């Protein structure tokens, strides 16, 4: 699939990288039912090719499913059950708040690339993806894309999003899942600098979605190097905090930022969810082809 440099995909990543994505597959830790045939295992028994189990024959079962060898051995009519390979609903939540505007490279650009790559992987694997750009609610969304033909549409959608507004992940999740949605994999790519903290994800649990939280950090956030008395200004709220940027205070800041990440990680782990930390200094391809695969979020 050639990708022109001026195309939406060309703005996000090059053709070679896009080709590499075709061979990847998003992994949901839980087996989730798909409505359409896809390339993901599901709990649903169906017409797949992977043997799953036997069950006693009941009237009406197709005779071609009867395991005649088992009948000869056990003198019982047993029907072979196969795992049905279904599609995976993937909900890609992209933090498009103003806090993502910071950094060099900009955190939002980095997060957008992550979402684009994951979306492309999902579409190449016939998954049904929804891309939701949120800030203090859903700003823009493109729902239920399926199939490789939708890749450019998804990338085009992503390339047009501009960050702005405050962060309220909980509100965005509540808004999106207010409408019925199949259980699937929720991917949230954000800096998670949300006043509500990890609790903003609380709604995911009752809906029994799987979750992959990708936290994007700029190195300046993790290791600031101010050298004087400064006033930090919140990019979203305009709130100000005066600090004396002493080495000791900067050390404390780094420790606090680290613990902030660990809290989110612990929260996800406690719910069986996945967490991945990404720094914008990490080359994007290394993140997708390296970290995501090592974490078995992709295979």
């Amino acid at each position: 699939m050639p990708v022109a440099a001026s195309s939406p995909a060309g703005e996000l990543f090059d053709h070679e990288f896009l080709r590499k994505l075709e061979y990847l597959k998003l992994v949901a830790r839980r087996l989730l039912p798909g409505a359409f045939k896809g390339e993901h295992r599901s709990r649903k028994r169906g017409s797949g090719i992977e043997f799953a189990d036997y069950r006693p024959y009941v009237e009406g079962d197709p005779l071609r499913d009867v395991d005649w060898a088992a009948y000869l051995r056990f003198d019982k009519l047993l029907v072979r059950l196969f795992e049905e390979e279904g599609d995976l609903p993937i909900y890609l939540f992209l933090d498009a708040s103003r806090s993502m505007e910071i950094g060099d490279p900009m955190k939002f650009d980095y997060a957008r690339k992550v979402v684009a790559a994951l979306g492309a992987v999902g579409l190449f694997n016939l998954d049904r993806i929804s891309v939701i750009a949120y800030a203090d609610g859903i700003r823009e969304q493109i729902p239920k894309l399926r199939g490789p033909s939708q890749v450019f549409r998804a990338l085009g959608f992503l390339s047009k999003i501009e960050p702005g507004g405050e962060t309220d992940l909980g509100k965005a999740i509540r808004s999106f899942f207010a409408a019925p949605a199949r259980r699937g994999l929720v991917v949230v790519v954000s800096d998670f600098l949300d006043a509500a903290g990890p609790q903003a994800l609380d709604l995911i649990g009752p809906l029994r979605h799987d979750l992959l939280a990708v936290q994007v950090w700029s190195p300046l956030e993790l290791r600031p190097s101010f050298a004087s008395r400064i006033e930090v200004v919140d990019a979203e709220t305009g709130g100000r905090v005066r600090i004396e940027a002493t080495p000791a205070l900067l050390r404390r800041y780094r420790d606090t930022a680290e613990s902030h990440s660990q809290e989110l990680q612990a929260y996800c782990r406690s719910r069986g969810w996945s967490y991945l930390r990404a720094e914008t200094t990490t080359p994007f391809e290394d993140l997708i082809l390296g970290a995501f695969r090592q974490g078995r979020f992709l295979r």
Partner: protein
Amino acid sequence: MTFVHIAPWLGAIAVLLCAAVFLGLYLLKPPPQAVIVPSTLVWQRVADQQPRRNRWLRWLVSLLIATATGVFLVLALGGLERANAGGRDLVLIIDNSATMAARRGDGRTRLDHAKAQARARLDSSAAGLYLADTTGDFGLVTLSRTKARERLDRIEVRLARTARLPPLPADLDLERTDVLLFTDGVAKLVPSSAADIETVSALVPARNAGITAFRAVPVPASPDRVEAFLEVANGSATAIEAELRVAPEDGAAILERRLELAAGETWSGLLDLRGIALTPRDSRTPTALVATITADGDALDADDRAFLLPPPTGAIAVGVVSAGSGGSTSRLASTLALDDRLEVTALTAQELATASPRFDVLVFDRWAPDAPPRLPSLLVAPPRRDWLPKIVANGGHVSLGATRLRVGPPAAVIGTLGNRPSVDQESVTGLVLEDLEIQRLTVYDVPPEQILLGDSSSPLLIASPQHAGASGNAKATPPWLLFTFDPERSNLPLHAEYPILLAGLVEHFGPTGPTPQLAPGLHELEPSVRLVRGPTGAVISTVRSPASVLAELERPGIYRLASDSGALSALAVGPLGSAVTFINRSTLTVADPSGATRGRRPPLRSLLIGAALLLGAIEIVTRSQGWTE
């Protein structure tokens, strides 16, 4: 305590202004730099972790450290002095003796540096400020700073004066007084009191070669011949090559010599002046000999030239006048004729009245004219005349100083001559007083100031009321000297010294005598002196009294004198001597070339800067460690 050398009330105003400026700057201080971050979430958590209870205290400590650092620096840079803490007085004494004229490496003299150092300390007193030099131009009096600055600027090197520490005012509380002496330590200054004097060194060793002696000395074997004694010294700690030149003023050199002088070495030599065309006897303007020493890097100019006035050439014309007969005249004349310097002519009183030969000096032998003679005269046992002192008695026996003189019969008087300084009168130089016996003595009623030898009860030698002085005398009032005893009846002519005595007395009359060389300093000149010009031609100020004229002949050189009668004469002054030429002969340590004052106590400025640096370091460490805000 003073600050930036200003008065306390000005200091208070300055402090208030500074406080206002600080307050204004605080109110106008720029806000901290704003840095936009994605979220203040983490920053707020960090800020919340700070123990709030101590934050204010830490901020206060940090503020105090910063303030103290700033205050210390300002005070140090402003020149805070503690000298007057508790109302201490300050006494500044500037050594302005001759060696303080030595130039240092930067071309400025030691005195310039001493004054600069003193100026820096001058304003550090609020209770009392005293300033003086060591040569007496400025005594110790309390001054305002303005006056003290003016007076300090006027202090100059006095080449000729003896340096001594001025006495401290009696009402000065020495316990509450800082006494600073700015000196090179060459002049021996004796502490004038029990005050603890802090010496500030202006000494920087320098090269100097100078003439320490240049004077005319008679050749002992031939009194009519004169030699010039010349002495050159290297007052440095290193060897010096110097060029010596001796020449008459505006004349060709009679001596040119290259001297290689080791450190501290002195060279001396005699220069025979015979045959050198100098001042003829009838000249009205004496010609001086000038000795000059030239050396590279010489720090002191004042000792590089010396001047000498050689005696006039030619014999002294002496007329010996008697009543007309008697062997004593021929004896006196023949005695005088023994001296080659004298050209003696014997004549009678009638011959003197009818002829007027040109004489320099007249000698009256037991005869005197009715009116004072119009030439310098020596009267030997004259008869009574109205213009002469009144004769009181004859005979006696006297003692001259410690020497008792026998007076033969018919002695009638007399008392003792006492211990008058006239024992040193040059006319008796060479006499063996113990052998002197005066057979006959005439006692005169004469004012003490006219007695050159003896005392009022038994004068031996009497001078005219306006007798010839060192500089000669006006011809309108010729001097005369009077022998009170009759040589005919005395054994004095039998003494070998008698011709010397006579010749000395004749030479005493000035125009024919050697011109003495004076040491630089304050001198008493003849009252007839009307004008004194210095070596540069400038008129020297004098103090006139009925008996004399006082003039400070400070710089070595030739001084020209003019008297009321229009007569001209000259004086040679100098040289300064070895005490000045050895400009490094000091017990002081070498001064800081920067001119910084070294005191007994560590300078307050250094302490303040040190404290500021320490506090600055504390501030940096505590802030970097987060101990303070």
